[in-house]
């Protein structure tokens, strides 16, 4: 897409009531309203969703895996944060 007057939008779709919106892709459009229409045409032609969010791609700030090591630290040294690190007495139920 080379038309400089068009804006890139990221598209998020809620596939069913009760679920979070999920990123599905992007569309070009001249404004938010048009982006919604385009997103509907591109991404939910077969009832894949009940709600669409469009967000200007430029408005999304993303972290980079390489930015900071600790940003994605899985905290493997903090096993105590997991329920499984507390052995329960034999026979105890519902805990």
């Amino acid at each position, binding site marked *: 897409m080379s038309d400089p007057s068009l804006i890139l939008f990221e598209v998020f779709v*809620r596939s069913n*009531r*009760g*679920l*979070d919106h999920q990123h599905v892709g992007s569309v070009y459009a001249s404004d938010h309203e048009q982006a919604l229409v385009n997103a509907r045409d591109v991404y939910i032609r077969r009832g894949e969703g009940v*709600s669409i969010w469009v967000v200007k791609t430029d408005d999304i700030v993303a972290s980079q895996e390489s930015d900071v090591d600790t940003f994605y630290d899985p905290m493997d040294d*903090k096993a*105590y*944060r*997991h*329920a499984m690190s*507390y052995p*329960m*007495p034999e*026979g*105890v*139920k*519902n*805990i």
Partner: protein
Amino acid sequence: MSDLAPELDNFQQKIDDEQRIEPKDWMPEKYRLNLIRQMSQHAHSEVIGMQPEGNWISSAPSLYRKIVLLSKVQDEAGHGLYLYSATETLGISRAEMNSRLQSGESKYASIFNYPSLTWADVGAIGWLVDGAAIVNQVSLQRTSYGPYARAMIRICKEESFHQRQGYDIMVKLAEGSKEQREMAQDAINRWWWPSLMMFGPHDSDSVNSQQSMKWKIKRQSNDDLRQKFVDQTVQQTEILKLELPDPDLKWNEERQHYDFGEIDWDEFYQVIKGNGHCNRDRIKHHVSAHEEGAWVRDAMTAYAEKKAQRKEVA
């Protein structure tokens, strides 16, 4: 009939069909207000709930117990934030919720108005208080309002650690010296009844229950959830070889549930009214923590202004 009748029918139909209500959907004003009340109260409970345990972080008996408790209290702060964020989708600001908490207009779980006197209390809170909260929250994973249900799913994933670390403290004390066993028993004696009160008044006396059940904000009644908690906790107490402080507690073969004694409702309402041991302290501490954090908010505003100025110059 009002003009809203078709919308109302449509709304109730979605709920009857087990669909979730999402923020942009039409909803009755009472549904919205009822949710704001319940969800903000839930959020406040997470936040105020940090206090009785937070007091023990620096006094926990080992470095290990300190980091465990610190992690747990950190999770509670996170749970408060998940819930405030979900409540904001109903059109109320976080600042407004905060001011309603501090003015006393909004409530929080009355259990956090009891003092945490000994290390065993930290165990009892994790095991019993979080245990009771889990029973309630598992049920709320199916609540009719989408953002609330999703917040509950996130929270429940993290709660199991909370309850187990508490039970683990109780196991260690129960296996310990005579004094330690007595300390554990004393904590159970003080926390058991307030834990049962966490489920709220009897169904017959609960002013909000009926409408909440019809709208599926609540999925199970106060008394049903309380019974479930009692049933599962008896066996856990037996494993500890400790006792629940209720002479009327006994298995009812016919009902296939435990019978248990009557809650002291006068105490319950007194604590809700603000006359518990710690009501004033909890709010006072919340206000001072908020005021002491003012410099952080000021610094953020100053930074934003400075950045905006730089942008203008450039």
